[in-house]
């Protein structure tokens, strides 16, 4: 930017952009640290304390819901990666008409409106007696993870050179042996990415957790949402829980940033 106003304008833009991104977050952070009196006008709270965090961390309900969320996310990650990695390998290698039709079908599954499946999947889960079970909720998450994981993982397999496989095929290797011995070791970064994608999709999910849980398996997002409908909302405590619930994503933050940049474009743009 040249000219007299270039630099101040850029600085102003950066300040405004950061204010947009960070204000709600910093305000909740301040409230989560606030002591007895919450600010009723512009200004900081009088006393700061970690008591709200202690409050959140020692709450049995929060503890239970966090454990549920983690169990369900791990289950959903296991089911979706184990099923979608072999499938995406075939999608990457086979030129059969069925595979390209199925791949397109998976793209439409991926773009399907979430709400339209909510009620019928609830009925199916009820029929299979899977409501309010870890398996039921994680399968409810899995059906949304598989289509994305298949497309993403297919992109990774497309990058693995075929020459290695061709020589293995000459030695008489079956597709299963090819996948486990030859291709998977080369696709480890892709598998890690798909695993994280699956884990975070499940950990952040709200709608399917809401309809498929009752008492035993209530997840953290469902519990947190419930706090807002209480008669007297405990802003300090739920702000603290909001901050704490971000820790898993914060731990993988730099990874998430690169994933968002490459990952989201992968399935759709490069598929």
């Amino acid at each position, binding site marked *: 930017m040249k000219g007299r106003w270039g630099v101040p304008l850029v600085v102003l833009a950066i300040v405004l952009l950061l204010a947009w991104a960070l204000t709600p977050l910093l305000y909740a952070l301040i409230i989560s640290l606030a002591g007895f009196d919450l600010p009723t006008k512009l200004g900081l709270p009088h006393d700061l304390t970690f008591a709200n965090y202690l409050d959140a961390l020692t709450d049995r309900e929060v503890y239970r819901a966090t454990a549920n969320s983690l169990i369900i996310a791990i289950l959903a990650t296991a089911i979706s990666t184990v099923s979608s990695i072999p*499938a995406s390998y075939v999608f990457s290698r086979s030129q059969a008409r069925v595979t390209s039709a199925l791949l397109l079908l998976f793209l439409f599954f991926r773009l399907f409106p979430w709400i339209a499946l909510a009620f019928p999947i609830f009925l199916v889960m009820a029929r299979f007696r899977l409501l309010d079970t870890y398996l039921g909720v994680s399968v409810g998450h899995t059906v949304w993870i*598989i289509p994305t994981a298949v497309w993403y993982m297919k992109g990774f397999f497309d990058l693995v050179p075929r020459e290695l496989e061709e020589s293995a095929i000459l030695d008489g290797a079956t597709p299963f042996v090819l996948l486990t011995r030859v291709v998977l070791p080369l696709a480890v970064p892709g598998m890690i990415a798909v695993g994280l994608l699956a884990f975070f999709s499940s950990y952040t999910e709200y709608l399917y957790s809401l309809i498929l849980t009752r008492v035993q398996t209530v997840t953290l997002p469902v519990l947190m949402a419930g706090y807002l409908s209480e008669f007297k909302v405990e802003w300090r405590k739920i702000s603290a829980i909001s901050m704490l619930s971000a820790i898993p994503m914060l731990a993988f933050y730099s990874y998430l940033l690169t994933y968002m940049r*490459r990952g989201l474009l992968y399935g759709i743009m490069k598929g």
Partner: protein
Amino acid sequence: MRRLTLDQALLIAPALAIMLVFFAYPIGIAVYFSLLDYSLMRRTKAFVGLANYLHVLRSDLFLRTATNTLIWVAISTVLPLLIALVAALLTYFRFRGYRAFTALFSLPIVFIPSSTAILWSLMYSDPFGLVNHLFEAIGLGRRIWLADPATALPAVSIANAWYGTPFAYLMLLAGLESLPLEPIEASEVDGASSLQKVRYILLPMLWPIFTVVFLLRLIDTVRSFALIWIMTQGGPGTASLTLPVATFKASFLQYDYGLGSAWGMINVVLVMGISFAIVWRREVE
């Protein structure tokens, strides 16, 4: 090989089986129910053809929901895309500290939707919210943003715009960085200013990627449910009722399986229409 071998079919089978049993089969049920007058409250179950669809599409509630969805979608796609575009262009020129900027600006992605709902409900809350503190400080007075029919929908949409900004920003930035460098370098030789580079080179080259990001964002806002449901439950009254929220209420709160399924299928038609646009663009490029 134009056909699938048995081994290959076995490798696809697990993923396909899950999708058939827990996706295709329930959707089949929903399509079937949408053709029935099937209500637990009225204790009916009879085939009525497309009557449920006509009933929904002719109702005032649908008109209201469609209008709300349009406003919701407009605010929560246009606002984040414009903000993200400015941020991505600035980052592209690598000002001092641009890495820190990217990390800070993208920070909202670490929050789950429930946290986002809490953060923004706090922002809008009446005695303690920052929005009200700011409005009072500049003499505009306090409001009950989420409980006022006039402000509930825009207020929730802005929260959604906030949540969507980093996604759009990171994708647009990746798009900018994937552009070929030759035209930009050539323009530098010709002495183009930064603004000229943006106007005549970067924006036209970015346009196809911008369209895809826009369509993806569009589809995600048309089908989004969590934020509105947690913050206002579609209220007050029907003030912030969008298509997915209305569908949820018809199925889960009114126990009308027929009408609820018809609402669901209307979502499908709309979202699949946008999906076709995305897939079609992909094939074209």
